[in-house]
């Protein structure tokens, strides 16, 4: 497991900025200035880009902004101004899909926006709730979007129908919605796996409710003595942690039965963690344990075996509103393809919806490094041998023909050659004979020699 880094930000003032710590040693790694995000308004896309919605406190002009920083770029060439997009209105909570393609944002007016991050296109904006949207969350497979509002409403939306360009202008209908919570929703999370996709929500009304994600059926209702402000589930999805307004954290088992179960009110907890003095704002699990952040200007790393605090990170610049845990390699790793983030559009442009989609094709890093080719000649050789033996193809016949022509040429050449030699020898013989006839008086020894030649030459 690689080392991880804890990224936190505050909503106190733009000056608070973003702080990055090494989670294992507590070392301060990086500080990114000018950022103030409301709760749930901070995330990391594909471990490469930090995105934060900005609230402008009273006195500032216009709406808020959404800023994004490329982590590696910032780490290496800092300081660097973020990419700031200005939506129509200030955005509070944001959420992104697993692959970082879509970014959803909710506004205090109850409107929600969905952007495509790479192209920056605003794909959809619609009114979700009457009250302010408090948190947003995508389901595990990124096919559903869940919004929770200030008045306790939860609505679940199908991304496919939301983004259906055929009815771009129409008001979409939620897959289901519920108003079981009596006060503001403060946390939403979904579990993985298709078989038990459940949604867990917590609210200031002090309850934590577990829902069937698709049908919106309430499966369980748990009542806590405090208003709940944050929830988290561990990697194995066994434990449910609920952070409360007075800084305590309750550890429960996340028991999701297979069947629908009617709810029972619970009144006690199994384990209570006391480590914070202020409202718990965010919690998450990482390799090292549980990280919790609070308004008491600190974040704690808990040992999940003994449930004791291993390390306390104190954030002098203000109460922590958001935290993200990223692998430290995000700061330095050279990605094959840099994840591209565009300026988010302010207004929807229906014509843009039809534009081409800018996309990386098969962005697997593996393929680029390992181009595999196959050797061909052996297979071809066997093929050609077959062809030759059976004379199946034109080419084979052609070669056979050429070979035999070549052979014939050779034979002709040889014949000619032999004939030439023959001729040559004949002339030699004739010459000899002539010699002998003209000079019959030559020595007998010579004659016998020539006779020998005569015998052997024909």
């Amino acid at each position, binding site marked *: 497991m690689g080392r991880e880094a804890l990224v936190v930000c505050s909503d106190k003032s733009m000056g608070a900025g973003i702080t990055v710590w090494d989670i294992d040693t507590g070392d301060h790694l990086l500080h990114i200035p000018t950022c103030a995000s409301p709760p749930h308004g901070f995330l990391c896309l594909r471990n490469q880009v930090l995105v934060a919605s900005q609230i402008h406190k009273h006195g500032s002009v216009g709406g808020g902004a959404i800023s994004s920083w490329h982590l590696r770029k910032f780490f290496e060439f800092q300081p660097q101004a973020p990419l700031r997009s200005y939506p129509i209105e200030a955005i509070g909570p944001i959420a992104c899909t697993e692959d970082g393609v879509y970014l959803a944002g909710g506004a205090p007016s109850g409107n929600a926006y969905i952007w495509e991050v790479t192209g920056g296109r605003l794909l959809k904006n619609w009114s979700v709730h009457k009250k302010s949207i408090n948190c947003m969350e995508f389901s595990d497979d990124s096919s559903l979007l869940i919004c929770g509002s200030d008045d306790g409403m939860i609505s679940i939306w199908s991304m496919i129908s939301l983004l259906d360009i055929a009815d771009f202008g129409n008001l979409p209908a939620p897959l289901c919605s519920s108003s079981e919570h009596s006060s503001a929703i403060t946390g939403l999370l979904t579990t993985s796996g298709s078989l038990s996709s459940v949604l867990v929500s917590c609210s200031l009304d002090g309850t934590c409710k577990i829902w069937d994600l698709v049908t919106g*059926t309430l499966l369980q209702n748990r009542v806590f003595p405090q208003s709940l402000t944050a929830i988290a589930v561990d990697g194995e999805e066994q434990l449910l942690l609920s952070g409360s307004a007075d800084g305590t954290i309750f550890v429960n088992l996340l028991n999701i039965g297979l069947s629908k179960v009617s709810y029972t009110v619970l009144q006690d907890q199994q384990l209570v963690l006391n480590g914070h003095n202020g409202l718990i704002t965010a919690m998450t699990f990482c390799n090292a344990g549980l990280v919790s952040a609070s308004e008491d200007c600190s974040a704690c790393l808990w040992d999940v075996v003994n449930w004791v605090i291993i390390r306390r990170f104190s954030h002098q610049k203000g109460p922590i509103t958001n935290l993200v845990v990223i692998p430290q390699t995000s700061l330095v790793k050279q990605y094959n393809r840099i994840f591209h983030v565009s300026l988010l559009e302010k207004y929807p442009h229906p014509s843009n919806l039809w534009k081409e989609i800018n996309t990386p094709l098969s962005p697997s890093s593996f393929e680029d490094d390992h181009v595999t080719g196959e050797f061909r000649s052996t297979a071809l050789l066997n093929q050609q041998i077959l062809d*030759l033996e059976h004379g199946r193809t034109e080419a084979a016949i052609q*070669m056979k023909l050429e070979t035999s022509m070549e052979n014939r040429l050779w034979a002709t050449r040889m014949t000619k050659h032999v004939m030439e030699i023959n001729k040559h020898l004949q002339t030699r013989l004739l010459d000899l004979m002539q010699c002998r006839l003209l000079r019959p008086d030559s020595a007998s020894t010579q004659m016998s020699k020539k006779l020998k030649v005569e015998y052997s030459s024909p």
Partner: protein
Amino acid sequence: MAVFDNFINMYDIKLKPRLLRTLIKEHVPDEKHPFRNPSELSKVVSMIKTHKLLGESSMEATDKKQVEIWTSTVDAWVERLFSLVSSSMPDKRWAGICLLGVTCQECSDERFLASYSVWFHKLLSHIQSPGDCHFVKVASCASMSDLFTRLGGFSNVKKEGTSHAGKLIQYLLQLLTDDYSEAVWEGAVCLLLTIMTFFPSSIHRHYDSAEAAIASKIISRRSSVHMLKKFSHCLALLPKSRGDEDSWSLMMQKILLTINVHLNDAFQGLEDETRCREAVRLLVAPAKSHPPPLGGQNEASEKLKKRSEQSVISSISTLMLCCSTMLTNSYPVQVNVPVRPLLALIERVLMVDGSLSQSLLPLMTSMQQELICSQLPSLHLHSLELLLSIIKGLRSQLLPYAADIVRLIKVYLKGCTLPELRIQVYLVIKVLLISKGLGMVVYFAQEVIDNAIIDLDSLIHDIGNNASSDAYRKAPSESLLKSSRRKRKHGNRSGSFEEHNDSVNMEPEVFKKGRTSSTSLKIAALEAIECLLSVGGSLRSESSQAGNQKFWRSKIDNLLMIVATNACDGGWAKEEKSVFGPNEKTSSYADLQLASLRALLAALLSPVVRPTYLSQALDLFRRGRQETGTKLAEFCVHALLALEVLIHPRYLPLVDPSQTSINCISAGLNFKLPENKYSHDKKQNPFLVNDESWNQDGDETDYLLTNVEKNVNYPENPNETSGDPEVENIDPTVGSSGIKDSEEQEQQPAMAASDHFVMGDNKDAVMVDAQLSMENSPQENAICHSVNVGPGRTEEESANSEITPGKDFRVDKDDGLAARSENPIIFDSMKGKGSALELDDEGMDSFPDIIDAEPDSD
């Protein structure tokens, strides 16, 4: 060499040069003797490859002298090849070139890097000389391709490779444009593909001429389908040589335009004029000019006019294939994919079914219509493939178009009857479901199920109307059995199963054909269902908005069980090893059995309720396991493994005593809390009462129990157990607990009214231990494997109880455990895992132990 200079064994390094020398002497042709038997070469090659004769080094190559001998032998080998390559006899040249290609693959790295340039030029001379016969040219292309493939593996010679490849390109393009045989074209295209893959930038200078050469090959009608595929692949890779965004987009635009122009011709009279104008309008922005036609020449469209419909369609298919390849292959930079024109094109093709359009008077003779209709299925197939590539290429970015695609597929499925096309549609559905997840299931479930039922009809057909849910829901096992019995009879009658096939079947030809096609369709349908269940099995029955959708889950479960039973009823089919040639892709009956079992497993693993037909399914899997050596047996073993959790929910020891030092989260979360923590909590928590946990536990099991009972109609009469005297013992313990009154009162009636089962597979011994430890030191008890016992209630009684009026069950109140036992978390987490418990008699025996424990723990 000494006669008795023997080797150690067949791995001896001495053997290699000797063997190679023998090969050179006896099997490789030489200048002097005629080359009679080409099949000798294949022996030579296999010998070289098996023994790695050209490797020149070996693991145990310590003997320097041996290595030298080897090197010199390989030198001699290469020498011989050179003489062959420059021989005047074509067959010897051919042999030399082929062996040179093998040498490129097999020789050592050092030798290759030292001499590839020489080899390149030897081969090049044969590619560029016009006099060589085609056979030799093809072989040189292949050997050259091997050379570049090998070269591509070295990262330090990229530059040299590119410059070498650059020299070659023009000759290759010459080969393509000249009037050679198809084999030469193939060789040239393959070589071009290799170069494009490894040294793309070498084509940069010849980009336009390469495009022209390949495009003209695609558009002209003179190539076989096989070749067209290669050409299309080559065209698709071409933009990579430039590697910029514009080349890709331009190529895509040109191809789409060409396709649409061709379609205009082909579909004349079959579709509305508006549609074809629309298609082109989407492609070319109004302000912009048309891009130059594909391949750069206008004559292409001229030629087109004269050509038959058939070849038009085959070029369209090829170009579609090209688009697919472009979409699915990687590209160095991000590109703009024109999704809308692509989808419009697909829709345009899929919506043409060969019927003449109403608005137009018949412009088409029946002859023409016949021609186009004969070609339409292949066109549809290719557009579905293109659709698949779009889904693959764009991943989640396709989401805004997903609804469009679903609509298109829904409409298309209604009319589509050809099995091959339906298979492809199922494939598309599968990919859509997997990539778009739950949201897609919500959209698609009904469609998939309706269509799958139609396609699986013959497998469930005998059950007829009984299959509809109600009969099954009541007594599923019985009717299943009946159905299988009936099916068996039917099987005998029609001779439709393997066993009877050979003997009984009267018209084997016809029957087999029909069966084969529909078998693969059934497999596709089953796979789609399997996929649906895996992705969206959690969609509960009551989830549906519409009434007819209500019971799809139970319907599907039954369907799958019936299908699997019927498919596997006639015994296990043999896995046919391609008797009819390797190319023919046929699905055998064994594949169908496998697919049905796979779908069944998916249904079992994503249950909404405890599967009612588990035992039948298990029986199937167990029987399948017996088929030694088949894929089916392999799968059945896997299925049984996967189902084990469902059959016997176990409480695995979460702590491995031998590895207590593990310090990872997962371990930490599951392990019990440490003792100091426990006592700390105990002080803090006011609700620390021992009995409480038993109560809570009881509720949990209670719920599970009733649930189980409800689902399987557990035959045991609850009243039998409710009379158990031991049960009464519990009440006082409940009463003695220190919980808040309200809580207590809430609990008590339930306890009193309930009858008690004891559940869990824990050994008695463990339980006794647990009790003892509680007795001794309640604060320190270290029950690691918590005992899972408790009173149970039947459904009726729980309904009667006043605690949760109107609600069937009580939630497991895990939290209520507090920190009474040291490991409350573990306690419940285990229960969470074992969602459906089986009653078992052993557990009952252990009940008294608990009773004993109750007072002690106070």
